[in-house]
């Protein structure tokens, strides 16, 4: 299996405290890899480093052989990496379709085009993307009035518009009701499978993690303490001890 993303020795410290220390892993093509861990374990820091929002102190992160470290978010996007945010972020002043159209025009290098009418540009492609995420009938509604779950799906569609080969999803189901969570993750799983997109995601909901990840990595205090299949991670004593579910036996206090 060839790795899409190879991370080696990624580290970041804030004021002497190691937020992430020597993080290393491979993400294989088509894999859905979950990154979990208690609050403050370094998940967000890792994500920000991978997407160029934060510069690591050391280490490399190669996407299809190209080191992402030191690149800007936009350059990383241009290589084929998509991103969704924990606090969902769409273009609130536009309609649903225009949100996707704006991303499509950026992909086609038309962000500086002063001549065409943007409303008509890439409309069909946007609609078919929205159809795929089940949002087509809301295409002309303002994004600002959508229900939260629909905003999540819209953000996913915007990310897909960039034709990513790797998707970084930061807590894709945060803030959703349990039933919606699984619906969203089923949708994501289906689409990434048919398009061959690899996914790295963080998540708090363990049902989502164990139901939708092919592999799970566990971070604790900036270090990777486990990396394996869901069953292997579930059985890992160390993981059980740091991650709430110690029952009574193995507290670390």
């Amino acid at each position: 299996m060839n790795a899409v993303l190879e991370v080696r020795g990624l580290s970041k410290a804030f004021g002497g405290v190691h937020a992430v220390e020597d993080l290393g892993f491979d993400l294989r093509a088509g894999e859905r890899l979950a990154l979990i861990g208690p609050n403050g374990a370094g998940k967000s820091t890792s994500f920000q480093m991978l997407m160029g929002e934060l510069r690591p102190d050391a280490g490399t992160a190669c996407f299809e052989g190209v080191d992402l470290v030191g690149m800007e978010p936009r350059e990383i996007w241009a290589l084929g990496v998509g991103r969704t945010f924990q606090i969902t972020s769409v273009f609130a002043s536009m309609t649903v379709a225009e949100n996707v159209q704006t991303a499509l025009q950026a992909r086609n290098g038309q962000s500086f085009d002063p001549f065409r009418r943007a409303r008509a540009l890439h409309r069909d492609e946007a609609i078919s993307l929205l159809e795929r995420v089940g949002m087509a009938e809301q295409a002309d509604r303002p994004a600002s009035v959508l229900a939260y779950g629909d905003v999540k799906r819209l953000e996913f569609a915007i990310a897909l518009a960039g034709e990513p080969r790797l998707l970084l999803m930061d807590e894709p189901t945060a803030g959703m009701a349990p039933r919606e969570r699984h619906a969203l993750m089923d949708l994501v799983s289906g689409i990434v499978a048919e398009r061959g997109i690899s996914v790295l995601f963080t998540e708090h909901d363990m049902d989502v993690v164990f139901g939708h990840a092919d592999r799970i990595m566990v971070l604790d205090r900036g270090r990777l303490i486990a990396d394996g299949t869901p069953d292997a991670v579930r059985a890992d004593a160390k993981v059980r001890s740091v991650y709430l579910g110690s029952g009574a036996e193995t507290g670390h206090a």
Partner: protein
Amino acid sequence: MGLLVAQLLAGLANAAALFLVASGLSLIFGVTRIVNFAHGSLYMLGAYCGYTALQYLTGPLGFWAAALAAAVAVGLFGLLVECLILRRLYKAPELFQLVATFGVVLVVQDLTLMLWGAEDLLGPRAPGLDRAVMLFGQPVPEYDLALIAVAPLVLLGLWLLMTKTRAGILIRAATQDREMVGALGINQSLLFSGVFFLGAALAGLGGALQLPKGGADLTLDLGILAPAFVVVVIGGMGSIGGAFVAAVLISVVNVFGVLYLPESTLVLMYVVMAVVLLVRPHGLFGRAELQAGPPAAGIPDRPLAPLGPRWRTAALALIGLLAVLPLIGSDFALVLATDIVVLALFAASLHFMLSLGGLISFGHAALFGGGAYAAALAVTYAETPMELALLLAPLAGGWLAFAIGWFCLRLTGVYFAMLTLAFAQLLWSLAFQWTEVTGGDDGLIGIWPAAWASDGTVYYYLTIVLGGGAILMLRHLAHSPFGYALRAARDSEKRARVSGIRVDRVRLAAMVVSGTMAGLAGGLFVFSKGSVFPSALEIARSFDALIMVFLGGVDALGGPLVGAAALTLLQDWLSRLESWRLLLGLAVIAIVLLAPTGIAGFAGRLLRRREAS
């Protein structure tokens, strides 16, 4: 040697008032996150109040008592402003807060005029300190020495207040985390009001204390504003010590400028600011704000839509009316209509970057006046034909916007706004002081249209075609992919970045577009008036642009047109009344508080409601 020391002392003395104003501004911003544009007005009020108090209080003690009384009076006035206006706006987008404080500027201007008259008031000498002492063979006014002592005393007092009293500790805590202070049981409103009182009182004290040096006149308010901004920006937002150091730096640089480069005194402080910001983007003692807030003008929640049939008809009717106006209207109506179109283009150019880009500029006059001066200079010195000059004006506006944008776009929100104002003042200073080239206060005159366009009607049509065309072009841009990319960057900067939009370049390009259009408006303006004066670059002109955008409604693309018409007609109508600034200011404040979507936004909402029902 003696001369140097004397100059140094004069600079230090000048620093006192500047420091008092800037520290109050900084203090208020630190806790309430409001940039108080009316702070210069509070300074002016301080001067006038001090003048009046001195009519009743005499003697050396009376003088200082009068200064204190002025400070308290201005502090109470500030408290009133906070309670009546700003308190309701703490959660509103920055634009609304700023426009509301503009309103206060206008109101205070007229109130002062009504209470104290238009005559400049000569400052009385400070009793007991009205002589000069000889230092190193140079005369140094005693009062200067007193001022040199006052500033550090106030700094010390503020330092004691901030570090040794509970109130000061709470203020510092609130500067860092307002919500947490509330969660610990502290009443934030009370704290905010207290800080506003203190900040206003400091400005009032500054105004009263400079009475013996400069007297009181109606230009003090905007005159001190730009230097105070520069001091706050150099010292670092929220840092009182920084304000002190920066005030001293600026004032000393200034007096030495008078000595060695008399033409450049006003420009020098902006050069100092530029150098400091290049090295330390957040000022000498400032810190990067951790989180950029939401866009300064807020995000509209309705998508942009092409005009509906009804609006389309209305627009066509308007164009038709403008076309036949020379046949039916008086000459005066033509002049008024020309003014409206020029101002509408000016407003539309600001609207483009402010509303679609979320970039609030307080110095938009720089681009308008820049275009105007470019055309006028070309005509005056190179006998450039009007046609070419009207091409040069937008080019100059675009280039200026590029330079200003390159500098200012590193900062966001209110920092961006304050920097743009500083740059506009820089250009104003150039126009005002570089007399050999710009004619200074006398301006450049005799800039008349080419022979074929010299008739008022022809020039009117020219204005309609160029100005109206440019407005339509801006409108078209808003609907183009570029306009969408610009809005995307405003709606969610991080989403835009990871969707492949070059946010910084898109914003710079928008500023250049905006500058080009403002420059064209300036060019049309020059030839319609036949002259240009530094007033084309002054703060009040930038205010006009903001107020027009605001009156028309930030979210409505047609807003600038409505705003320009409203402002021109309102000014024309109100200027027949004695106190039009007062009325305009009150109107602006009322609109911020009651109808924040502006006239066009309000009308649009009414229309939609009717269509829905």
